[in-house]
């Protein structure tokens, strides 16, 4: 009889190491089997509205990789407004099989309510995408409307055909269907006539629907990587063409962070121009999409940097997070949120000469400014700056250099969007940390002495209701 070897328990250190290894191996799992929630948001980063103003598309990033992907979820905007107007509004009728709307009073915001997101999300149309979405944009073409989502996780722009009922077509079927390869542009060089792929680290996306250009910035600090790219969507010319990756451009400023499409300049009608910020260099870059020359055999449109200017005269100026244009085009100005210093910059533009752009004003804003939107109210421009760290939205009159108001948000306000309907002055803010969508009332009160819910968070769509 052979003596069995004596088994001795592993040392405590070995046990600990094994356990640690085990924990590490499951701590950040691939999560192939864990589907994301199909009726709420988790680390939402971006939102876009349908041109009709009926739907809001909230993209969740799956930032902590808890699930096997992010999602794009249609939110019934009409129902959202109805709930704001009528606290008794109980159900979003446009949503098939929608549960009743369940809400409680917002303890942190007098006059506000917190509602379960599931009552407003069209769950059967929620689609799954790769993790780490960063930005989104909607374009309306002659016979279709498309949503583009820049996704860092798979290096793609995932695109959707939208319908007016909240439908999202990305080559997937059913609730939480994963978008198909045919709806992800930039991942396969074979799909590109120039054999181009989307560079890593996309940071923002901007669309020129008139030309079908989809322009992306990339915030890589690796000098060897491209930092701007161009996609053309054949749908711009009518029909159902798919977006095609055209070109990626390197040797640019590092940390490109956001882009805004400029009005067409005289003499340059054929080209679309974007002004682009950097979070790593004190500069503003201008990019143009070159359409090719119809008189020649030039079939290769591409993007190029047409100008770059220094952001001078500031202490820093090298950490700019977002840019938006003044809706009053005659003012020829853009607004930039800067973190060095933490301020709102007014940039005066010269349509004929990008190199003449100058920072014409600087206004302090609360800590951690990250995004902004600009609107016009009775002919006056208002800038709404989202400050992630300070957890608030600051409403600024740049001409009066005055803070009109501030809205305290939940823990992680990020991207914001104005309601596309002029008659519905609401601001929608995705809350990254709380997985929420916040609705801020921008309706001016009839009596300034009784502001009511003006500049307040009137509604929050949260994954679940707060515990009593």
């Amino acid at each position: 009889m052979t003596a069995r070897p004596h088994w001795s328990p592993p040392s405590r250190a070995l046990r600990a190491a094994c356990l640690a290894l085990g924990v590490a191996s499951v701590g950040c799992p691939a999560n192939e089997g864990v589907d994301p929630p199909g009726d709420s948001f988790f680390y939402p980063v971006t939102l876009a509205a349908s041109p009709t103003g009926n739907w809001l598309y909230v993209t969740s990033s799956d930032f902590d990789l808890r699930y096997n992907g992010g999602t794009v979820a249609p939110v019934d905007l009409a129902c959202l407004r109805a709930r704001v107007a009528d606290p008794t509004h109980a159900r979003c009728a446009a949503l098939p099989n929608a549960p009743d709307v369940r809400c409680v009073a917002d303890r942190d915001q007098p006059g506000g309510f917190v509602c379960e997101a599931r009552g407003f999300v069209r769950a059967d149309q929620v689609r799954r995408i790769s993790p780490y979405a960063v930005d989104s944009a909607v374009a309306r073409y002659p016979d279709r409307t498309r949503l583009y989502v820049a996704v860092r996780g798979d290096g793609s722009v995932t695109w959707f055909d939208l319908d007016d009922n909240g439908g999202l077509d990305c080559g997937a079927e059913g609730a939480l269907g994963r978008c198909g390869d045919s709806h992800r542009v930039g991942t396969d060089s074979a799909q590109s006539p120039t054999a181009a792929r989307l560079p890593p680290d996309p940071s923002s996306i901007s669309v020129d629907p008139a030309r079908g250009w989809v322009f992306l910035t990339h915030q890589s600090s690796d000098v060897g990587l491209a930092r701007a790219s161009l996609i053309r969507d054949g749908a711009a010319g009518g029909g159902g063409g798919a977006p095609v990756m055209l070109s990626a451009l390197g040797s640019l400023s590092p940390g490109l962070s956001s882009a805004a499409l400029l009005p067409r300049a005289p003499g340059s009608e054929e080209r679309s121009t974007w002004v682009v910020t950097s979070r790593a260099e004190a500069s503003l870059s201008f990019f143009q999409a070159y359409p090719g020359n119809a008189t020649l055999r030039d079939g290769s449109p591409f993007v190029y940097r047409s100008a770059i200017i220094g952001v001078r005269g500031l202490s820093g100026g090298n950490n700019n997070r977002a840019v938006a244009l003044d809706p009053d085009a005659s003012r020829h100005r853009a607004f930039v949120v800067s973190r060095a210093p933490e301020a709102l910059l007014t940039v005066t533009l010269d349509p004929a000469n990008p190199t003449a752009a100058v920072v014409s004003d600087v206004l302090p804003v609360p800590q951690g400014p990250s995004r902004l939107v600009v609107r016009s109210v009775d002919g006056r421009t208002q800038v709404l700056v989202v400050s992630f760290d300070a957890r608030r939205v600051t409403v600024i009159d740049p001409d009066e250099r005055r803070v009109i108001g501030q809205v305290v948000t939940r823990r992680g306000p990020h991207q914001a969007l104005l309601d596309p309907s002029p008659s519905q002055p609401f601001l929608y803010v995705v809350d990254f940390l709380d997985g929420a969508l916040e609705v801020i009332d921008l309706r001016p009160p009839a009596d300034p002495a009784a502001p009511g819910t003006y500049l307040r968070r009137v509604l929050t769509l949260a994954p679940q209701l707060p515990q009593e």
Partner: protein
Amino acid sequence: MRPLSLRSAALVGATLAAACSTTPAISNTNNIIRATDVELVCLEVVGSTVTPHPTTRCSLSDTDNGPGANANFHLHAVVPQFDRGELAVIDLATTSGVALVDNSPAIPGYSFVPVGEFPVAITSDVSEGSGYVYVAGGRSDRVLRIDAAALRADPRRAGFAARRVEISIGGLARDLALVRSGDRHLLVATLPESRAVSIVDVTDPAAPGAPRILTLRGGGALGDAGAGADAGAQALPHPVGLAIDEESARIYVTDDAIDRVHVIDVATLAELDSLPVGERTRVAAVTGLARTRRYKCDQAADPDHCTRSRYLYLTTADEGAVIVWDLTRGARVRPNVLPQPNARGSRVEPSVATDRVALLVPATALVAINTSAYDPMARDIPVSSPADTATCSAGYTPTAAGNFSGVFVGAVLRNGQFTVIDVDDYNVDTWEAQCQDGAGSTASGTYRFVRHAPHAQTQLNLAPAVASAPQTTAVLSGSARGQTLEGAAAPVFACGPSRTRDMTPACNDANSFGVVLPRRQIGTSSAGPVYGPTDPFTSRNEAWTFAFESVLPGLDQTGGALVADSTGTLVLEAPGGLFCTRGALAVDAIARDMLRIVSDPTPLVADRELCAQTFGSGSAPLNRDLVVNRAYEDRLQLRVAPEVGDVATVLRCYPQAIQFQVRAGQQWIAQGSHSHFLHSVRVGAGRECEIDPVKQAEVVAFAERCLLDRGTPSPQVPTLLRRVCPAGRACTGTVTPAGVALRDDAPVFANPYLCTQIYPALLQRETPRGIEVVASPVDRDTQISFSLINAYEAFRTDTGPLPVAIRHLRGLDRLYVIDAAQNGLMEFRLNPFERGRIFN
């Protein structure tokens, strides 16, 4: 099996944390966040009893910042914070503990006095034994008055509410000031959106008056139409800033909608004739009277300034530039013009207009400073230039370096710096600077003229000079011109090292390296004449590079399309090219640039061989330089060389958009590290590029001064001036038949900072006729660089990322700056200038 030990558990925990957590965000815990303004008040603190006093009763010890003679009298700063809607109170005289006053100690952390949403401005009215601070809110048409005696109190305590009074001002205030006129105390506020100024009589604390809304007159550059007239909305006033002149009982109100400054008479509270300052303005500061001048008035830029004057300093609404209005003469000052003997009206800073202070960064706030040592009615005052060895009369001593004294203005700039401005500082030599009585000094100092830094501590201790010998680096571009016959013979500057045959002794008095700075004799030493720059304050510390046939800055682009126009001429279309804006030229005998095609040909298969033969490949390019026939803002008309063939060949080889460069043909491009490419090209008729005659005339004037400074015989000057190349470009001299590059023959390169001439290097070449001396060819992209050092620089110091307000307390000689972004409240000492404490 034993359970895991604590260590093991910790390991597991650490692994878990490392695997799945993100780096925690660390937030600053500053107590003063987004401050907007600051006011100083003197409080006597005895136990819990606080009594306000005028600020003249408070002082700060130079040694420990303590309260000085009376230990109970503490100077306090009061700081509104718009983000929190609070008023922070800071005890500036505390020597122990924390200066921040915690108004509600029972609450963890520091608690301040709530004052309502978005406070924007603060002022005070403190008399002996009582007083108040007034805070204007961004969303209220009322000003909050707080009893100064309650500034250290807990606002949650009963009784505090009685110390707060809301006073109606009839609109939303932008700026706030307190005016004392006789026995009257008036609270003044600008109401931009009401196009008015509100004045409230607060003489009787128990019964503040009703607001008197003074609607201001409109007009300005758009016509004196007045409010409601046809001139349109832009002609309506939009008052924003206040400056109070109590001596002459005037309130000055800036306006960022019209180009005038409103004037209100304190006695009648009526609007007087506005000041036609010619700019829309935002921030104002009015100085006290400057001294009567006794010396060197003839050397002032404007002799009229040799009177006792007071000035209104203003920032412009558009640019943040500083302009100055002479209240005594009633006219704009030209602070960016050098004084005599500069007869040409040259600018201190060439890129700034003459009627602006020579600042390159916008100013965000101004404060008039009238230092305690200054008595405007006394004789010439002890100013504080960097005096050293002067022998002064009995009873007088040289003043210390680094002190600020006199009447001037402090400015905080958008880039986070503080600087000082003085438009009437005409101590043109060291007389006033060295001795209080003006005696015993000589005129040998180099501290000659300070236009925008009164006796700053910066000293021009060396004449600007070339820092090192020209560094020559040759970068071969691969073109045929990159080949040289006898090594890298590079051109040299005039008077350069002995690499040329031309070593004219007359050059020796310039300097060793051939870059000639405008200069004049400023004295004599045992070694001979001492030279200094003619206009030292036009010099700038800067690195300069001259590059031969260099790419014009910004004209290395991708995206141009080569096409044939209606006449069959080859054209590069590049709507975003901005060729004129970027300095391209194609003018015979002046400058004719070249287009360099960088891209390789992209022809159809059938044309590949032809294109390879014509244009080569990336490693061996051929015929890629096309001479620019005519340059336009958005396109270049090109010549096709015979080697290329015809236009059709170019189009067949380059059917797609190309990468291109525009290079200077046979010229050097001069670029300064700060000045960049100072060209003089503008967009002319038909959007064609042309020389701007005004700018070019300035360059020629610089060249003339340079030639005269160098002793060039007058008859030769006109000839040489005709050879001046376009601004920003330098041309190489020629070689005479005798093989000599004459010093006076080379075209003069001149700009506001330097002038020079460039000579060709010479080569000996054997010919059937014997040895000939010829100019050595220059490699494309050959660079010559040098630096200017030790130029005068105005005094500047860092404050914080976003300074927004500044206060000065006469008698204290300290400055207080509010940084809205990071540092909170910062203190600076004036004598000697020193960065002090930070309260946050």
